[in-house]
């Protein structure tokens, strides 16, 4: 379980995340939604110790992220931020194998290599394994990063906007894959998502943020109501139920 208590982030007088307390349950997919500037990405970065906290504590399975050694955390939790621009010319295989770094420290065992090959296969990247990252399209690169993070094989996997750069087909493919990771590999997946319909269709739990605070949290059923969306986004939407899933119609 990820336990967030009284976490705050401020830059001088600007408060980005204000005293958030939240528990993210083990197993399944938790999506964080909310308008631009709500503090979603900042919160995710603080959970994953990429950004220091201004106040409060975050613990992952009881390990405090600010005091636990980074290499210990790297075996529990992995994070992929959005807009990754890796300038290094690495092959997809190199990149994915680096996901084993927390365990191998650079000396790859046969088991590490097998794990990397599985992750590459999981993301359907076999044909591209020996290509350099800078020769791939944005969507292929995004899949390579996801493969690396999955190869890290941590209980908690955090993604900031994993659907960036992906077209319709690949976006759905990615969400299905994350669902599979949660169900078959029993991982805890935490996502920041822009598209509330994806959040609705694939998450077990939704956290809605606005102005640096958590305004609502609950099951997709509880969040996907006209009233809740109005509170989160200041927007009137119609919620329709199709095939047992709640979809918001917000295009017109």
């Amino acid at each position, binding site marked *: 379980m990820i336990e967030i208590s009284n976490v705050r982030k401020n830059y001088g007088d600007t408060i980005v995340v204000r005293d958030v307390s939240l528990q993210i349950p083990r197993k399944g997919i938790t999506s964080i939604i909310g308008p631009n500037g709500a503090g979603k990405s900042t919160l995710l970065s603080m959970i994953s110790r*990429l950004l220091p906290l201004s106040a409060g504590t975050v613990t992952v399975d009881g390990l405090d992220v600010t005091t636990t050694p980074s290499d210990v*955390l*790297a075996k529990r939790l992995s994070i992929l931020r959005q807009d990754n621009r890796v300038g*290094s*010319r*690495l092959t997809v295989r190199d990149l994915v194998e680096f996901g084993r*770094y927390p365990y191998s420290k650079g000396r790859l065992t046969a088991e590490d290599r097998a794990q990397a090959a599985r992750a590459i296969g999981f993301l359907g990247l076999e044909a591209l394994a020996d290509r350099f990252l800078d020769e791939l399209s944005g969507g292929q690169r995004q899949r390579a990063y996801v493969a690396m993070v999955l190869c*890290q094989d941590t209980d908690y996997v955090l993604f900031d906007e994993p659907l960036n750069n992906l077209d319709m087909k690949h976006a759905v493919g990615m969400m299905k894959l994350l669902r599979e990771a949660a169900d078959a590999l029993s991982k805890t997946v935490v996502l920041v998502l822009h598209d509330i319909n994806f959040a609705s269709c694939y998450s077990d739990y939704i956290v809605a943020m606005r102005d640096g605070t958590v305004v609502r949290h609950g099951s997709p059923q509880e969040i996907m109501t006209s009233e809740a969306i109005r509170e989160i986004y200041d927007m009137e939407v119609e919620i329709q139920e199709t095939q047992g899933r709640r979809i918001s119609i917000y295009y017109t």
Partner: protein
Amino acid sequence: MKFPLAVSAVIILASISLLVGAGDLSLTALLWPQEGQHATQILLISRIPRTLALILAGAAMAVAGTIMQALTQNRFVEPSTAGTVESASLGLLTVTLFVPDSPVIVKMLVAAGFALAGTALFLRILKLVPLRSVLTVPLVGIMLGGIVGAITTFFAYRFDLLQSLNAWTTGDFSGVLRGRYELLWIGLALTLLAYFVADRLTLAGMGRDFSTNLGLRYRSIVSLGLIIVSMVTAIIVVTVGMLPFLGLIVPNVVSLMMGDNMRRSLPWIAVLGAGLVLVCDILGRVVYYPYEVPIGTIMGIIGSALFLFLLLRGRQRLA
């Protein structure tokens, strides 16, 4: 598979380097020494040290350039485009002024300290620059180098040390003799250290977030990298003078060949760096025989021409 080929090429170049020069030295003279010839002495006192110095300096500088590029995540940075060289010269000038009789290792350490401070300042300034484009980074470095260089020149001029300053800033191996190059073995040790932490340096090259996610302490690897780069630069400035663009050309070429996974690429970078330096030095020795053109000048021509090629070739990608 091709690596042994590259190594043999360097060995051939090294043998040529042993035989080429102003003093008469041929295989026959070596094998059947005659009265009044000093072939063996030339070999032991001058040629072998010079050739070793070339190999050590070339390998260390090329690797230092690679490390700089990983730490700044920028292809166009190396010690001479980051203010490192100029800072090392300033340090060397300072120690020459205040403690002129200090042993060479002390001078080297002071120069390394200055180089470290200068490079850290460079990274600090980079954080201040808004909208960093790929090319602002070396631009900032070159300007910083210019400023530090102006300070150094000013004091060198005041205290009549311009000639020494010139020796530090233009590479020249013609003065390398037994007893005057051994510091470069430390450079080899640092190169090996870099190879030992190659995985961590590669990770650091992927950026702070990536490396933190994988449990790396980003700050400490950056510090280690900076220390290696500063020491190598200082050693080279103290012993043979600066080799411009070497740390830029070789890593870029190797990166195109085989990518940036340093576990694989560092041996290549070291070997090709040594090879390029050998070629340039041999050229400098034969192009206007029996006079020598310093390697700094030759590298300046070849290096800047290749750098221009790299810049203008990837134009669309950079713009």
